[in-house]
């Protein structure tokens, strides 16, 4: 199989690289899942409105990729963004309070699920238009190179976004100018309700080849493999050799958004992913088998995560709604020029 051979290369080449802390990775993935489950619960209670795209099932992708980043790197993604924000070190309270539209949210409640940013943590959104984050990420990479700050921009997009023209406009410029960027396709098998085989011709991991952007397919449910591939890709982009593309084979357990019953796929298909390739369960078994952690260790992590998420949910309900005077603020900067 073509991609496993490539992955072997990836793993062997990065043998000297810092190893992924698997216990920590498990913790991060668990945080994302429990956070998302809580978000779904609050949505059901009417506390979160509008669009809310959950990351459940895809946790290994953002966890593995962002574990390979350095502090000077930046990240941008689409509207399925809660996982990235938590992994970038943003406060779960601020994220959850944004979901509930409260003043304590990262955007003072004005952005919502799809529009959160943290300049401090180098997270540049949270973008609601499919594919629009790709040229923006390319521009962040342009700024890294211009300022010579050694940073790389990691730009996520879904498999659906790979059919947008602006993605290829970006590939062209990034390759032409050898920008420090890694493009990550989170292939969760569905562009909203349209299965990958019905929306994307050819092999999506190879969509950059014509521009000289080498692409690799990665098992997106295996956090170690994601990490290894991302580390190599990020360091290659950092070295000035230009962009790299990684296609993460993953799966979202929930619908596209909260109102999507996901009737376009079978229960058997979903169960197969959940039962055989769940990133958290798989890693849990490995941690125990390899004696990297005890049941007790993991239980205490679960307890800790539960508290973080409960606290976030409490904060998100207690934080007040933005004052009506906030309606007209933050449209323009009135900083004197």
């Amino acid at each position, binding site marked *: 199989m073509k991609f496993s051979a490539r992955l072997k290369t990836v793993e062997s080449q990065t043998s000297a690289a810092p190893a992924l802390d698997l216990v920590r990775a498990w913790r991060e993935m668990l945080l994302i899942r429990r956070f998302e489950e809580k978000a779904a619960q609050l949505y059901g209670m009417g506390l979160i409105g509008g669009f809310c795209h959950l990351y459940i099932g895809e946790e290994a992708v953002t966890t593995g990729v962002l574990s390979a980043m350095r502090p000077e790197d930046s990240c941008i993604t689409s509207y399925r963004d809660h996982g990235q924000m938590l992994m970038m070190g943003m406060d779960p309270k601020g994220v959850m309070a944004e979901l509930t539209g409260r003043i304590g949210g990262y955007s003072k409640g004005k*952005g919502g699920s799809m529009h959160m940013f*943290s300049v401090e943590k180098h997270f540049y*959104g*949270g973008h609601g238009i499919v594919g629009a984050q790709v040229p923006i990420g390319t521009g962040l990479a*342009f*700024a890294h190179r211009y300022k010579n700050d050694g940073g790389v921009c990691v730009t996520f997009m879904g498999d659906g976004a790979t059919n947008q023209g602006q993605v290829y*406009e970006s590939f062209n*410029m990034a390759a032409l100018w050898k920008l420090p960027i890694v493009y990550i396709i989170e292939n969760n098998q569905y562009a909203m309700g349209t299965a990958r085989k019905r929306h994307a011709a050819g092999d999506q991991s190879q969509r950059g080849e014509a521009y000289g952007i080498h692409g690799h397919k990665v098992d997106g449910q295996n956090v170690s493999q994601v990490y290894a591939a991302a580390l190599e890709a990020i360091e290659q982009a950092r070295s000035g050799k230009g962009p790299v593309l990684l296609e993460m084979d993953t799966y979202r357990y929930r619908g596209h958004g909260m109102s999507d019953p996901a009737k376009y796929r079978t229960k058997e298909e979903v169960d197969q992913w959940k039962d055989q390739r769940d990133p958290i369960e798989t890693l849990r078994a490995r941690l125990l088998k390899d004696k990297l952690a005890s049941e007790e260790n993991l239980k205490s992590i679960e307890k800790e995560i539960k508290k973080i998420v409960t606290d976030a949910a409490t904060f998100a309900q207690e934080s007040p709604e933005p004052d009506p005077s906030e309606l007209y603020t933050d449209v*323009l900067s009135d900083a004197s*020029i």
Partner: protein
Amino acid sequence: MTIEILMPALSPTMTEGTLARWVKNEGDKVCSGDVIAEIETDKATMEVEAADEGVIGKILIPAGSQGVAVNTPIALLLEEGEDSAALDQHQSKTAPMAPATESASAPAVVSSSPVSAPVADDKTYAHYKTLTVREALREAMGEEMRRDENIVLLGEEVAEYNGAYKVSQGLWDEFGDKRVIDTPITEMGFAGLGVGAAFGGLTPIVEFMTMNFAMQAIDQIVNSAAKTRYMSGGQMGCPIVFRGPNGAAARVAAQHSQCYASWYAHIPGLKVIAPYDSADAKGLLKSAIRDPNPVICLEHEMLYGQSFELPDDEDFTAPLGKARIMREGSDVTIVAFSRMVGHALEAAEALVAEGISAEVINMRTLRPLDTDTIVQSVMKTNRLVAVEESWPFAGIGAEIAAQMMEHAFDYLDAPMVRVHGADVPMPYAANLEKLALPQPSDIIEAVRTVCYRKAA
């Protein structure tokens, strides 16, 4: 029969140029396609090729001649078998292009004329100089790029080609590949890249070859550049300038002749400027580059080559959000932006003969609109005409009408009248194109209407 070789037009808007050099001399034989001369405009140098075979009989315009009008005979070509005696019998049948449109004659009402000197709000400077609008825009970018090394210019043909309309001429030479960047023809891509670069701490100036092509990029301008400050609760802004020629050029038809003023002015989170003269161009663009918000700079191709006086001072800027009274008057207010300011000034000058004193306001910024200046003027004149090149429906004039209902209703002695482009896609035919665009005569007629006057 002797053939006239005519001064060619290099672009749809060229009316005259310099005959830089003759490549062929009198007596030389030429074949069709041979380069016979070089001509120059402020935008470009181009070779003139022979269209017919023959011998150059006589050079009518010597090398180095400036201001040669398009269609002026520059040489006579003898066809095979003809001798030089034919030259003596030659009578020119071709009329050189008259300074074609109202715009070309507009310099009569610009800087050299006292009526256009900045009135009211602008402070005075010790020294003034004359620049074309193109040079003024270039000077604004050059000065700002010297001041702040985080400013970059990117767009199609901005670097090595020196700008499709030569606005960026010389900037690549000065600032190099790192800061003046030729992009592929990929508007949505490089507009989004500019937004990302702004998020990442740079101040990009994104040039669209014309604003018509920015429609490809409008999602990035509206959804990514304009809304991010709000969507981030004020945490992150997008300091960027999108600029390029907007509105009708000349004879380029429907897809290349559109004014986007009301499109962008509609969007909270954007500032929109539309310079008329060189002082506006330099002063507003400098302020736009320094502004922490995304700014759309709507330039006008027909104004690029026009010369105006402006302050000769590196500290000169023009404030955003502030209109400029170009000419004071007491009977009627004419409010306009971009090229239509020239038409309004021309109309105001002509109206003097009818005993009508018109005040002309150059809006300069369309968002935020300087409603106060318009209201103050209307309180004085009690009559208002709004002029725009674009379509009327949901246009800038419509917005001004609404603002006047809200803020100056009791001061109006007549319903406001809008002068605007015809509500059709821009036609190609010269006569139809002229009919589609507001002319000074339309403004004069509108002023008569609001003043309840008949033509003199």
